């Protein structure tokens, strides 16, 4: 609907990466537009997570470029990527397992505010003030995701579905421009998936966050994505509206030939 007017937020340009003999990504090119929900689909091993890892600077592409506002992020260290406005969740949940929900979310807010080693060690007033602010911000996000009751619980004690929500909270507190979600519906039951769809839409509509969504749950992708990019064997198969992708012959063939629905 808004396709013509939307500005691009991030561009993936001819990105390729290989691990030994395996070509995990090969000349992948697409744009992410501001305030859209872009679905990224593909059979197992298509390279979706690898692309996420390139975007969050955990992997260095062997060729191509990734730009935000025309600027390449490939020189940026992994810990600076939040400052470019990118936050993410992980496919297999990468929480700080032995820490509480609140602490996990507060660490997600690490980038908000300067380094403060001296103030922290000596418990200077500035440290206490920032700590209270951060706690309040964390509680807001925790409440938004319905986690208030488990706020003090150790993450490893929580069921997988709840952990996924904690990860979402931890990503959101940094106030990202672009949120990368790697299979957020994995391991959720039918109702939870439905509720998750609403949460994702809310994050985009009310908070203005652009979303790149990797998901095998086609019902979810097709119902909330504005556009979809399909990958297979590291290459882009197709790009377009959900309805186009669903009926695209190459996509259908890839999924029938693959091992997942």
């Amino acid at each position, binding site marked *: 609907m808004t396709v013509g007017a939307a500005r691009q937020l991030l561009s993936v340009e001819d990105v390729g990466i290989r691990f030994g003999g395996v070509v995990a990504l090969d000349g992948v090119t697409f744009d992410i537009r501001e305030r859209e929900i872009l679905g990224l689909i593909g059979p197992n091993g298509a390279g979706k997570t690898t692309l996420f890892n390139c975007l*969050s600077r*955990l992997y260095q592409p062997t060729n191509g470029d990734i730009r935000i506002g025309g600027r390449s992020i490939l020189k940026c*260290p*992994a*810990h*600076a*990527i*939040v*400052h470019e406005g990118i*936050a*993410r969740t*992980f496919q297999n949940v*990468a*929480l*700080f*397992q*032995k*820490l*509480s929900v*609140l*602490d996990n979310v*507060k*660490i*997600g807010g*690490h*980038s908000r*505010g300067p*380094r*403060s*080693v001296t*103030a*922290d*060690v*000596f*418990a200077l007033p500035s*440290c206490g003030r*920032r*700590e209270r602010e*951060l706690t309040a911000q964390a509680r807001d996000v925790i409440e938004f995701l319905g986690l208030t009751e488990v706020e*003090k*619980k*150790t993450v*490893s*004690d929580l069921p997988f579905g709840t952990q996924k929500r904690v990860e979402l909270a*931890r990503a959101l507190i*940094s106030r990202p421009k672009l949120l990368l979600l790697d299979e957020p519906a994995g391991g959720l039951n039918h109702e939870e998936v439905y509720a998750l769809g609403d949460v994702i839409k809310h994050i985009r509509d009310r908070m203005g966050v652009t979303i790149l969504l990797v998901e095998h749950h086609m019902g979810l992708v097709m119902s909330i994505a504005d556009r979809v990019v399909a990958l297979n064997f590291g290459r882009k198969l197709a790009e377009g509206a959900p309805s186009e992708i669903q009926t695209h012959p190459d996509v259908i063939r890839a999924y029938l030939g693959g091992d997942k629905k």
Partner: protein
Amino acid sequence: MSVLPDTSIARNDSTSSIGIRTILLRWSRPLALLVLVLLPLAASDFVTFQLTMLLVYAVALIALNVLTGFTGQFSLGQNAFFGIGGYSAVIVVEHFHLSYLLGIPVAGVIAAIAGILFAFPALRLKGVYLALATFALGTTIPQLLKLDYIEQWTGGVQGMMIEKPMTPLGLPLSQDAYLYYLTLTIALGIYILSVNLLHSKTGRAMLAIRENETAAAAMGVDVAYYKTIAFGLSAAFTGVSGALGAIVIQFVSPDAYTIQLAVAIFLGIVIGGVGWLPGTIVGAAFIVFVPNVAESISKGLSGAVFGVLILLVIFVFPRGAQQVCDRLLGVEHKKD
């Protein structure tokens, strides 16, 4: 409440015994402090000396906890920073004729610089490789202290003596008691700084690195920076503890800082419970007293007895004193 990394525990308050537990939890720290303040009044000079050494080791254990317990970085070379601290203090006091009270912080600063310098190569290493690199540091530093070139500063193989400080301001304390209270004050200060750290943004960044480095980086935690801070702080605290130890023992020599000391310090944090600061007192008591206990059981086989005692603790209470304490207070760890 504030000292435990309380994120990792869930209270199991059954109403029947909640009273005693709450009281114990609330008053354990003031009570422990009171005991520590009163102890030397009833103790002989020798026992006071032993208690002072206990506090010295407690500081070294807090220091290793910052590195290993908080940040998850192993070190089998803490003896290096302990020795650097000891020698620095003695050189400041004996060669430059400056105050003991200056020698101690100077030792901390010099050890911190050594720690930060060591952090640069160490940043590239993980797990067992880091342990090996620190081990190499721990075996090298005592050797370097023996070098002829610096013998005029270090006393070479012989080492150096340092006089016991006089009790200042006409305080009604023996020299040993004064040293005890000085050490207690410094140990308390370092304990409080470490608790502050644990509950701050910096401390959380360290815990994040311990739990999952990749995720920490994705959250904007500069892993290299915080590891360097951890090495620096840990070395600084260890240096202070080494300085106090040198002053208490009145002697430094390369043989006092061999790798065995590093092993003892590592053992100490395991006995106390890795990452649990109150456990450092228990770990330190283990280091100071258990070798004597082992010796009293069997003179010839004291080493073996000591080993058996360690194995016993590790098998029965793998999380050390923390586990014992949790069990007594009915605090439950749902997952190891």
